[in-house]
């Protein structure tokens, strides 16, 4: 049976459609909830979020993977209502964006405890929501080197992935040697891992995307749209053409098309930061897919990147 955990329950993989594989309804660093400067009324949250999801649906988007970690304002009840009202499938994650976003209860935990947390959220539920996590989020802390805590989280994610069949999605693919060592030691096939943000403006030069792909990993060009051309770009922005050229160079005329996924990493309604004006998940339809067509990708190639590859990746291997 092919199934993917969404916040409204498992769905058949065949129903996913076009997938935005690395997005956020709303992301905030842990502790940002204490700072009223970021607070928004629930009315405003829905106002900022619903039109983007509706447009995503109308453009032909099927599934929105929310990559917001456990302590980053992940709000599964909110996602459930959004999904039910807009018709967009939403996949929530377990795990952490990086060790530096894990609060002390988890930062001080060992691999076994973290594994149990992830497995519980995938097989029993996230808190009291009744929803099951569909992916496991891991990541590299600020600084570009995996910390001891990052490594414990990666190892726990690998064990939870093996136990549940859920895939692993990474924040940053820098320091991949350490990540792959852990996945190899745990026996997790690398096609169950999406090494994300290889196109990130800060780390792209030092990210070994081709090497990771040759090892069998899936590669995420998933910060599309964070461009230096924006009126107020974030520090991780990159010139639009540079990113697109990087993507095309990686795909190598289609040779590595089966291993690549793409997304925009946008916030519908940011929680603990101002967000980036003008950047939404719909960059995928409004800019990225037209750019890919203009660069010569045919419809079959676009379907591979946005439908087939994410379907393979997200399907629970159990």
């Amino acid at each position, binding site marked *: 049976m092919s199934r993917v955990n969404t916040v409204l329950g498992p769905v058949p993989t065949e129903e996913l459609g076009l997938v935005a594989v690395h997005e956020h309804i709303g992301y905030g660093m842990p502790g940002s909830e204490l700072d009223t400067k970021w607070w928004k009324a629930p009315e405003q949250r829905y106002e900022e979020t619903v039109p983007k999801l509706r447009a995503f649906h109308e453009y032909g988007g099927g599934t929105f993977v929310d990559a917001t970690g456990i302590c980053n304002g992940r709000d599964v009840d909110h996602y459930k209502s959004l999904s039910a009202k807009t018709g967009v499938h939403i996949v929530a994650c377990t795990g952490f964006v990086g060790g530096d976003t894990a609060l002390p209860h988890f930062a001080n935990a060992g691999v076994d405890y973290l594994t149990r947390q992830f497995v*519980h959220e995938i097989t029993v539920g996230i808190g009291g929501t009744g929803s099951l996590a569909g992916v496991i989020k891991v990541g590299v802390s600020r600084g570009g080197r995996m910390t001891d805590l990052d490594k414990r989280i990666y190892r726990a994610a690998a064990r939870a992935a093996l136990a549940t069949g859920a895939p692993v999605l990474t924040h940053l693919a820098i320091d991949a040697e350490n990540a792959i060592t852990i996945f190899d030691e745990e026996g997790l096939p690398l096609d169950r891992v999406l090494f994300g943000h290889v196109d990130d403006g800060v780390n792209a030069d030092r990210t070994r995307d081709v090497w990771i792909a040759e090892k069998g990993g899936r590669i995420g060009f998933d910060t599309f749209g964070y461009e230096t051309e924006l009126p107020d770009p974030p520090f991780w922005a990159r010139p639009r053409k540079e990113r697109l050229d990087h993507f095309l160079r990686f795909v190598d005329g289609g040779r590595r098309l089966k291993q690549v996924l793409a997304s925009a990493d946008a916030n519908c309604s940011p929680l*603990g930061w101002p967000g980036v004006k003008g950047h939404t998940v719909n960059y995928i339809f409004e800019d990225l897919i037209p750019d890919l067509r203009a660069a010569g990708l045919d419809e079959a190639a676009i379907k591979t990147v946005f439908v087939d590859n994410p379907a393979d990746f997200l399907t629970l291997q159990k």
Partner: protein
Amino acid sequence: MSGMSNTVNTVLGPVPAEELGVVSVHEALLSVVPGAEYAFDVTIDRAEIFETLAAKLRDFRAHGGGTIVDSTGMFHGRDVRLYEALSRATGVHIVASTGQGPEELLGGYFLTPQTNPPTPWPADKFADLFTKEVTEGMVVPRVERRGAAGLVATTATRTGMTATDESLFRGAARTALATGVAVSLRYGSDAVHDLDVVLDEKLPAGRVVVGGLDRADAVAAGAPLETARRGAYAALDHVGTEGGEHITDAERAALVAELVRAGFGDRILLSAGATGVAKGHTGNDLPYSHVLTTFVPLLTARGLGDGDVRRILEENPRALLSVR
């Protein structure tokens, strides 16, 4: 800061200081290790928590207690609406605190913000965050502000104050200067050093309580006496905890008597450091009434008179908690 202000900020609003009665200054009501609220094996049943805390507060009141100070700050399980209901139901005054620390208990928002480079928060930003919890009210995260915090509490890292701990301490001191609430600090490895950091902000020593001075290392270093000499309040705040890193209750009683003899009876505070309900850690399961039921007789046996005891349990905390 007003001339009217012999009042104390409780969760139900300002209360005249003389109504506080016996005060326990360093206690915890609901104590949650940050993140434990998301853990698969932690259940937060607020009705059950209320029942447990209400029983403990009623026991405190039955033994002569008047006011409990939850000195755990803004990010360790503080639940202002629960505390309001508890205070109404039990008649015990509850003072809740703002502040955070040590560094390892902060969220990433304060330590690795989304800037390049990810520079930890400086003192002024902490001061602003904490000050608003007094002037505008304590936060229920992402929902609303409630009543004013009655204290700003912070803690240094056990192995020694870090740069971010120092920002927290300076931010707490600036909060006290801006709002008139007192600072509660738990030192890291050197009580007098850590006290001097907040005094360096020109905060009068009488607006500071130093906790943890019944740790054996502090006693060995003479820190309780030195704290009192500087004019700050010296809190022996693990009454009932013996062995390990703490001195015994008998030793605490001797220390109190020594401080009183040295003329510092007006600088001493006592508390059990009890945890009402602990989530994500074991807590310290003592009754809030322990000081009253078990420790006061030891003081009396040491020759302290009723006046000395009353001063320590009522007058000193009243002066500390009065908004200046």
